[in-house]
């Protein structure tokens, strides 16, 4: 098992951990953090899989994808945090409202 595969498996582990927390945790900040951890997991997989040959130079294309992905993740997190603040301001609770209660 090469180092690259180890990183890739770790990435999948992070993805699964994040998915678990996203579903189980009710607090919105924890859900946002969970999504960020899932994102890091995907980026780790992309970076690890970029090393195609054990001794050759890594493939730069997945690295470029990761950089784009990080930009998207930062924007998404910013939007999520602003929304979270507005939700807390209007409802007083950092949770999703129950859709059936309206």
């Amino acid at each position, binding site marked *: 098992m090469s180092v690259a595969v180890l990183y890739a498996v770790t990435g999948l582990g992070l*993805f699964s951990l994040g*998915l678990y927390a*996203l579903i189980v945790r009710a607090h*919105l900040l924890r*859900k*946002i953090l969970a*999504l960020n951890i*899932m*994102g890091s997991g*995907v980026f780790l*997989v*992309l970076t690890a*899989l970029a090393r195609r040959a054990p001794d050759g130079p890594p493939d730069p*294309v*997945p690295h470029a*994808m990761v950089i*784009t*992905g990080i930009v*998207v993740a930062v*924007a*998404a997190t910013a*939007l*999520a945090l602003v*929304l*979270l603040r*507005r*939700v807390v301001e*209007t*409802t007083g609770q950092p949770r*999703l*409202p129950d*859709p059936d209660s*309206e």
Partner: protein
Amino acid sequence: MAAEHVSLLPVLLIFLPLIGALLSFVFRRRAAGLGIATAVAVFVIAIALAFSLTRPQRYPVGGWGAPLGIDLVVDGLSLIMLLMSATVGLGVSLYAGGYFHARPQLARAFWPLWLGLWTALNGLFLAADIFNLYVTLELLGLSAVALAALGGSAAALGGAMRYLLVSLLGSLLYLLGVALLYHAFGSVDIALLGERASAQPVTLAALVLMTVGLILKTALFPFHFWLPPAHASASSPVSALLSALVVKASFYILLRLWLEIFEPLNPGRGVTELLGLLGALAVLWGSLQALRQTRLKLLIAYSTVAQLGYLFLGFPLAAAVGPAAWQAVIYLALSHALAKAALFMAAGNIVLFGGHDRIADLDRVVQRLPLSLAAFAIAGISLMGLPPSGGFIGKWLLLEAAIEAGQWWWVVIILIGGMLAAAYLFKVIGFAFTRAPVSHEANAVPPVMEWTALVLAVGTVLLGLWVSPLLAWLATGNPFGVGP
């Protein structure tokens, strides 16, 4: 010379709304005028593209070309989707001009976000590689969430938050699939992947991840839970955009990947039958939930859940009879886009007029807002699948495919779905004719808001009369592969 001129039109379809978004952000006082001007220009360019496109076009942005650069590709399927967003986009822009006239604070946020959303949408329909699809999908999702939150009520914010979480989860699942496909086959270009991909475990894993991510974003049953609160609590022009266009984008990606990468690998009947089954359940569950609703906008949102279900019937039927089923599905998607935009606009007029959307208290709307109710009824005809309308043609083609495939159970689902649609739409129309126990003060509705709803509704009838040119455009470049 002519060919070079044509190839610039797709680029304009992305850059015009982008420039419009930036200008309307900088010149906030003129945002509405800039936005409507941009919408007219994008509409004209989409029509010009439709009339000049004789074969699929590939445009390498910046002259780099694949695999390094970003390519734009337009074929019949992209073209129909671009026309759909151009028509609905122009209608919603005119409507929004009236709607936000009395709400200048909201208008300043609406126009840049909506034009940004349109940029992402056009970029998505023109994208030639799966990573570019990811970026446009995220841009689309983020601008859609911001638009959904625009109303600022607790319901709108909660709905938008749920929408954001689901949307990001869907994108990450999709991105993981992109990573696996790139690792296995060394390309993100859809056409190259179609040539190189082979049936192996990693392809199957990518198929599952991307499909789950995309049906989550398309709100296929049982992942539809986020759609009704987000679509129903948004401002009316935004509801129209979300229901008519945004959910179709993720379906488009799924269809594109399926047609070009996964279907040739024959992943087995299990996948197509499962997607068809979920689609059938969505038709039934969405329609029954729509029937139960007491609020007009929630009813229309659940109707979207049901109508999206029909699109997934294409998977098992196309496996049996080939491209005819996809023609039917695209026709249904197109008619639904126009009809649903018209319904949400008419509902928006009713909410603006009476100050509420309780169905039981619709106090003789038919006499007071005749144009809006006419729009509601005409768009309803298309949703029920009655002639002459685009919905009728789509369902007819779908029924034909189901009968040809000898799969009568889909026929039953399509017929029951149509009857349930009639039931929930007539429920609204019935209350619109009767006097309600509580009457309320009425607000004036700008005429442009009534007329745009009516024009889009009449558009669904035109779709029913103008079938062969549209199907000819859709067949450009043979996007659904060779028929049996």
